[in-house]
């Protein structure tokens, strides 16, 4: 039994027409890279990807990679044998034995896909024979065609494949197939989730974090680095740009109107993110903003920051409730890091009564008049880069 054959269902990619191979190639490269140093042989066929992974690769590593790579709808370890009904039955009996199958499996059914129409037996007959063999060999299992614990899939292709059970993938499209964007990453709950959604649609992300020491502690910066590290299996090679932001903030505090402080700060961040994006060939910004969550996320405030940005700003969480964001944050493992108590101590910069419905022309003029150019350039010069 060759232990390390995996069959991946690709879902949406397989619906693509002319550029399907671009997506497939991207996914293939990603998988090869993520599974290194173990060598892999990958081929694609009819909406599926067959990944043969070097003997001795730890199963946890394979699971970690396959379960966190976008573009995979589901994956399963498969065994193959020659196209012979008897051989298929023997293999199915073996793989469903008590010590190989997951202990939760009590009921099963068999489904057969006969892509090779020259094969002498019909799908129905194959299913029936395999089911019979498994039942006879393992009396503790029963057949349930309506709601089985597992579906044993038999596929007759170039060889016969048996896929005893499937695990869920992240779906979406492979990272790097959808271009490059600059994520505005804070230490909060939202932006990591926004990152996940952007990456899910194939975007390769750079991220920018604005560090306002001493207003924010170095632990806050470590927290953002930890978030990037946690996200990296999904984002696949995120590049974190850390920008010292204190001087810009102090300048805003000095010259800006109190009720516009937050807006001017957001604008400066967007301007810096634009500059970094251009320098790194990113064609959009990504933020964790959700409509009307806070004063700087009202329709008018978002419209103002849009006005400042040359680049498209993607806001994947725009229609999300906080609870929905938290659910995803928990699933992708960023929630516990985000709630560490090293958040922004920027209350000193937050106005008592922030503008909720700013006029974007007026605030833009105030922003231009604030004369932040030099402070912004200096901040960018002092950027620190961490590549994951």
């Amino acid at each position: 039994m060759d232990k390390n054959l995996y069959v991946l269902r690709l879902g949406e990619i397989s619906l693509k027409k002319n550029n399907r191979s671009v997506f497939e190639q991207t996914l293939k490269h990603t998988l090869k890279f993520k599974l290194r140093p173990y060598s892999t042989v990958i081929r694609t066929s009819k909406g599926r990807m067959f990944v043969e992974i070097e003997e001795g690769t730890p199963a946890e590593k394979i699971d970690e990679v396959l379960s966190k790579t976008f573009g995979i709808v589901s994956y399963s370890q498969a065994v193959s044998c020659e196209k012979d009904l008897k051989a298929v039955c023997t293999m199915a009996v073996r793989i469903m034995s008590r010590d190989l199958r997951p202990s939760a499996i009590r009921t099963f059914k068999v489904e057969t896909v006969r892509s090779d129409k020259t094969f002498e037996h019909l799908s129905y007959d194959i299913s029936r024979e395999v089911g019979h063999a498994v039942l006879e060999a393992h009396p503790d299992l029963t057949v349930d065609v309506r709601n089985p614990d597992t579906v044993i899939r038999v596929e007759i292709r170039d060889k016969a494949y048996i896929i005893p059970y499937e695990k869920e993938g992240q779906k979406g499209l492979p990272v790097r197939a959808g271009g490059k964007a600059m994520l505005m990453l804070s230490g909060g709950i939202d932006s990591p989730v926004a990152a996940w959604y952007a990456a899910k649609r194939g975007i390769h992300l750079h991220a920018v974090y604005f560090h306002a020491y001493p207003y924010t502690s170095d632990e806050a910066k470590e927290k953002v680095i930890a978030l990037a590290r946690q996200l990296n299996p999904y984002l696949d090679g995120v590049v974190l740009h850390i920008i010292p932001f204190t001087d810009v903030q102090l300048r805003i505090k000095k010259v800006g109107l109190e009720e516009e402080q937050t807006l001017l700060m957001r604008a400066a961040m967007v301007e810096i993110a634009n500059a970094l994006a251009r320098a790194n060939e990113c064609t959009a910004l990504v933020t964790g903003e959700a409509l009307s969550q806070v004063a700087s996320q009202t329709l008018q405030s978002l419209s103002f920051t849009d006005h400042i940005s040359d680049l498209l700003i993607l806001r994947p969480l725009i229609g999300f409730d906080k609870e929905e964001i938290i659910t995803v944050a928990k699933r992708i493992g960023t929630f516990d890091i985000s709630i560490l108590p090293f958040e922004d101590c920027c209350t000193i910069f937050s106005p008592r009564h922030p503008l909720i419905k700013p006029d974007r022309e007026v605030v833009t003029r105030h922003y231009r008049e604030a004369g932040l150019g030099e402070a912004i350039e200096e901040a960018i010069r002092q950027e620190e880069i961490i590549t994951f």
Partner: protein
Amino acid sequence: MKQFYFDTASTTRISETALSAYNRYSKETYGNPSSLHDTGKAAKEVLETSRATMEALLGSREYNLIFTSGASESNSIVLSSLLWKRRPGAILVSPLEHPSVTGFRTLLKEKGYSWNVCEAPGGLIDPTSIIGSLTSQTQLIVLSAVHNILGTIQPIRSIYQAVKQRYPDIHIHLDATQAPGKTVWDLETFPCDSFALSAHKIHGPKGIGVLAVKKNSTMRSLSSAGGQEQGMRGGTENLPAVAAFSVAIQETLSNQEAILASVRRHRELLDTHLKKIPGLSYLSPVSEHSVPNILTISTPLPSEVFLRIMNDKGFALSASSACSSNTKGKQILDASISGFSDTQRKHAVRISWDRFTSYDEISRLITAVGETIETYGRR
């Protein structure tokens, strides 16, 4: 980097004399005081001499001195002794108490005790609120002699007299940790049925303290273990620490006036300059009701931010552990102490110093505080 240390209310560095006593008794008198041989007897003698010295200095002849690991353990022994009582009653504490006291709330409430907290507006316990909170059920009152954050000196004498007049059987325990070296110590000013001290607050070693209990008290500790310390605190005595503690007590109490005069001079300098800094306000009261060398201020910056900037400038101060916008964080000024705004609590920073602090260090501190607020504070 060596820091300018302004956190002496948290702990102090050990004095040379206390350290040399610690060294000497570690090397020379290493016997177990419970042993019958001469090495053991020598240790026993040092133990009892140290105890007698401390008793004389503290003026505590009516008390048994029990050596513990520190005031936290001393407080624990007093509160846990209630578990021996047949019937649960009531406990009265002030809102100024240390976690070693308040930590018993859950357990004792579960055992049927009612846990009452008196008023302390501005950090000063109101004696009438104490009397008003007493019932025939009250068994124990626990009070701080000096508040560790605001430096307020509690009117223990009037509280003691008022309580004993009505309820002579209520046990009054004092957490006196912050009193020696910060105010004149005598049991006339701080009358009580028991009190707790820690050596490390007065330049003694860490890990040693005392519980003094009036000789007529029936207090029992949960277990007498090996029977040491009159059955109140088992375990082989920490002899070098006891000896060093007694040296530290001696240094502190026999020079009280000189020490207080020195720390008061520093306070004067601080008062003269800090009060001129716009945006800075005092939370510690300026009166004879507070010690000179603990000063809690409020600045335009969140505590944590202020602390971080000062730390980078080379000053060790004390502040709440968490960010102002984090409601889960602990603040140094507990919300149950009335008289302060929410912002004041979130922006509170404690400055404390001792007799080793120099005039120059105080001047540098003043400059650094001014610069910090000027550069980083709100307009």
